[in-house]
């Protein structure tokens, strides 16, 4: 059973639909107790990091996530869920969950020909093997839409990078935590495969 965290950050139902399609049982909840005692946690989201943190705090989900992480529960963050696990985000100068040391930074985009946000399909370069990424082949593409990217403090916490103006970390993690900047639930069959791998992953 996958527990999907509900913190008003965008369309959680798209993640739920992808899991339903794969025949993976899931529930959407805002109850910190259910998060604390989850088997596996999916932490999706779109939107503003500051707004996301406010709702997490209001609902006591920040502490529930710390407890779950400390207790070894496998956690997968997606998009904003991959940003607020870091210590801090430049978006609204927000103090974040600090599950993983690092900072969320804005694309500089000095090249005026580059679009804001980074939106569309882009490749991944796997820089450290990880069970969740085991089926990713060179050239496979994933759907991104974001203006900020996660930058872990330690290089060992970076598993894959993507290039947009510069190489930025697109898959990060540590121990029982893994997070992806792209939307696996909207990345076609290879994206669905990553979600399946998360279900089978034993950290």
């Amino acid at each position, binding site marked *: 059973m996958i527990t999907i965290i509900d913190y008003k950050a*965008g*369309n959680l*139902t*798209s993640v739920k*639909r*992808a899991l*339903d*399609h794969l025949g993976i049982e899931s529930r959407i909840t805002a109850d910190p107790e259910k998060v604390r005692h989850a088997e596996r946690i999916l932490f999706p989201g*779109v*939107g*503003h990091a500051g707004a996301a943190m406010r709702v997490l705090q209001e609902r006591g989900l920040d502490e529930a996530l710390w407890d779950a992480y400390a207790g070894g529960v496998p956690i997968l963050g997606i998009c904003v869920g991959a940003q607020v696990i870091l210590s801090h985000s430049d978006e609204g100068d927000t103090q974040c969950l600090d599950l993983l040391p690092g900072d969320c930074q804005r694309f500089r985009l000095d090249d*005026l020909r580059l*679009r*804001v*946000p*980074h*939106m*569309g*399909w*882009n*490749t991944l370069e796997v820089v450290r093997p990880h069970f969740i990424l085991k089926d990713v082949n060179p*050239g496979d*593409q994933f*759907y991104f*839409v974001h203006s900020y990217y996660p930058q872990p403090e330690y290089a060992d916490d970076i598993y894959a990078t993507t*290039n*947009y103006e510069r190489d930025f970390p697109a898959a990060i993690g540590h121990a029982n935590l893994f997070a992806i900047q792209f939307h696996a*639930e*909207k*990345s*076609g*069959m*290879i*994206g*669905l495969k990553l979600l399946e791998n998360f279900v089978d992953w034993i950290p």
Partner: protein
Amino acid sequence: MLSKRVISCLDVRDGLLAKSIKFVDTKDIGDPVARASKYYQDGLDELVFYDITASSDHRAIMLDVVSRVAEQIFIPFSVGGGLRSVEDCAKVLLAGAEKVNLNSAAVTNPGLIADVSQAFGAQAMVLSMDVMRVTPSAEIPSGYEIVINGGRKLMGLDAIEWAKIGEGLGAGEIVVNSIDSDGTKDGYDIQLTRKIAESVRVPVIASGGGGTPEHLYEVLTAGRADAALIASMLHYDEYTLGEIKSYLSQRGIPVRSVGIDK
């Protein structure tokens, strides 16, 4: 490297495909869910449903279609047509779309762009504009004017100006549909697309006139579009997605390779 997107638009009326589409497998006739599902399997990068339902009584049918499509295709999916309020948009997003396309309603009520962008994020707010070529004037310096109601009503609004206003209000993407090129299959309006693409920093999707893979190549290079919208060349089985993407890839355009025969 970020790929250029190939997007297809399906016109849906009362829950059925509006254009009669030739199918190899006849049992699929008229069913937008089956068509969407086929395109997904074939490597489409993004799907747009445009609801041209005349009667508001039949809107619920569209929501049902949106939700059935969302259960089967796992690529970005946007819905437009007949959306006039934040509530209308919330319904299609809840039904499973990622993005909403606003067109006429945004021209008559620009505040709606800001409201939708604030409610759901700029990434969900696609501004779609129908543009007609006119003689340049003081009012329309670019010679491209915004029209609504399917091209029947000129609005006295310059398309370049409108694109900038839309971006400022919070549109996360802009679809530029050339009324002059639409349905001609003679190619996109390269000059129009390029002018808009150079005036805003959000992604620009070219629409209207795509008839061959070369047309896509032209608008994605000279037209500086980030994505190209195709309809009949796919719906009438004139080209497959694999053929279109292979062509673009061979000419050096970065595309998502799903659907290309290796």
